[in-house]
């Protein structure tokens, strides 16, 4: 695992990826702190982070698009498969290298609140609490990006999928206000989701029976729930969308609440998507 980690890390710093990513993040945070902390003279650094997190839509896909897709393209994945290391070690090694690349600009950013504190009152716990959540938010999105990169051998495609996925996640809270809150609307949405899950399973496993089975089970469950007690489904869809939003969890910290459940949520998302990446790599051996 350390071999993969070191190798990936040297790869990032040999190529432009790490520098472009760091530059973008630092520019975004720089503009944010100029607007909020300097020009508007607001002492809350967390507002800057809130402003910057939209930038993840662009910079996370830049960072993660090549991580696994390129191995496939160059056929170096065959080397990784033939080395005496486990697949989860490959994915974890790669992910940790990405985290280090992400931590480099973040450690520079971590100095900003201290600098501002020299010129006025900065509530440091809120600033650093938000910074921690900001880090975890990025880490979770990197895990999502890693998984998307493992699905294809085309970097552009990986970025093209990751951008709308992150964007959708970003706007899911505002969208939640506009979606139907009625039980029937929720049922329709859940049925669509069940079908989509079926498609994803079909793509991942190339197993028709499993995909149909899972889809039909989910559809039956939704149908049964609707018939049994439709009131439970009311408002469920907006609720799910709000809860699934990674960004919404981060805003809790921005508002000055140190929310442990959010931290747990981020860690869960990270583990879940790394697990999916491992499965996606493993699946390549079985098709």
């Amino acid at each position, binding site marked *: 695992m350390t071999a993969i980690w070191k190798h990936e890390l040297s*790869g990032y710093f040999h*190529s432009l990826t790490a520098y472009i990513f760091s530059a973008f993040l630092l520019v975004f945070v720089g503009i944010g702190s100029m607007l909020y902390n300097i020009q508007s003279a607001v002492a809350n650094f967390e507002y800057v982070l809130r402003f910057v997190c939209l930038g993840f839509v662009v910079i996370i896909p830049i960072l993660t698009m090549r991580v696994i897709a390129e191995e496939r393209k160059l056929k*170096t994945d065959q080397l990784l498969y033939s080395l005496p290391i486990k697949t989860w070690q490959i994915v974890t090694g790669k992910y940790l290298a990405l985290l280090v690349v992400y931590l480099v600009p973040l450690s520079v950013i971590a100095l900003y609140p201290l600098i501002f504190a020299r010129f006025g009152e900065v509530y440091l716990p809120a600033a650093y609490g938000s910074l921690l959540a900001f880090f975890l938010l990025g880490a979770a999105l990197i895990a999502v990006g890693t998984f998307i990169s493992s699905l294809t051998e085309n970097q552009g495609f990986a970025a093209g999928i990751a951008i709308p996925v992150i964007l959708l996640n970003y706007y899911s809270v505002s969208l939640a206000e506009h979606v139907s809150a009625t039980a029937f609307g929720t049922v329709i949405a859940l049925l669509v989701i069940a079908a989509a899950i079926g498609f994803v399973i079909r793509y991942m496993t190339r197993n028709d029976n499993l995909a149909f089975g899972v889809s039909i089970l989910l559809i039956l469950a939704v149908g049964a729930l609707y018939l049994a007690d439709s009131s439970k489904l009311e408002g469920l869809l907006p609720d799910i969308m709000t809860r699934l939003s990674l960004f919404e969890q981060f805003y809790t910290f921005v508002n000055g609440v140190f929310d442990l459940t959010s931290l747990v949520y981020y860690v869960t998302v990270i583990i879940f998507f790394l697990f999916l990446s491992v499965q996606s790599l493993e699946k390549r051996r079985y098709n």
Partner: protein
Amino acid sequence: MITVEHLTKCYGDFMAVSDLSFEIGEGHVYGFLGPNGAGKSTTMNIMTGCLSATEGKVKIGGCDIFEEPEKAKRLIGYLPEQPPLYMNETPAEYLRFVGRAKGLKGRELATQIGEVIEQTKIEDVKNRLIATLSKGYRQRVGIAQALLGNPKVIILDEPTVGLDPIQIIEIRDLIRQLGEKHTVILSSHILSEVQAICEKVLIIAHGKLQAFDSPENLETLLRSSNEIDFLTEAGKEETEEILSGISQITEWECSVQEEALSRVSVKVDHEKPREICRQLFFAFADRKKAILELSSRKANLEDVFIELTEGEALQEMPQEPAGKEAENEQRPAEKKEASEKTAESEVNADDSNMEA
């Protein structure tokens, strides 16, 4: 060293490898021979743990590749068809990564890297970016990578494809050297290559093992044993008349060349082809017709290969002309498959050498 039992691999409905079983001992160079799409790469990918099998078992030095992959993989060095290189690294960096991933550390790592660099002769380019290296050097870096960790088995998938003749000879010498210390398995669709460096040959076609023997034994296995080709000034009818007078000769082909010369090729089942040559000579001499050229051709691996791999295809397509004509038709097609021109000329050169 390697045991493959009832290996089967299906891609959807397509069966790439079906019920393949063989055993490979320690030491020596083994050749995996088969036309394109015969299942060579698939078998090698399964043996190295890059691919799962639909059914069957692979054991490397007693370790099951599916059940104890780490242990088994430590015994294998693998060079896939396309060398798995990171283009924006130097060979030294690349080898350091692979060495570490194979569990080497510190001084051990440095000495092993030094050794493989020396063995594969990449000392001069070890600090240049792999992207700038020629194909031959890339191939060597790929082999160097496979050698790290001193594995007992080295598996090379078409190691000489796309190299120029000098590079091919160098890589072959390297493989021969490796065969002294390791078990080397290489795949190829170039027959002369396998004949030149392998001590044992596995012929695979349509995902099945067709033969497993030494090149010499495979040649004797061939049904259409030896052939005598000659050019005579006798006309076609006269030649046939003379040939029918020799009792040991039952099958021949005769074509008329310019200046009323006949080119004849005679199939010989006799254990002493020289004896037939002698009889031919005197038979034509009695008629005052000179034999202008005469050569006896030993069946080579190419014939065995075509017979073994095409035999099945011919059975499947009975409308195809059987026998010699079909062979002649398929031979050029076979050579076209050797994707690189250099490799092709290499085959021809080697064949003519063998004939001489």
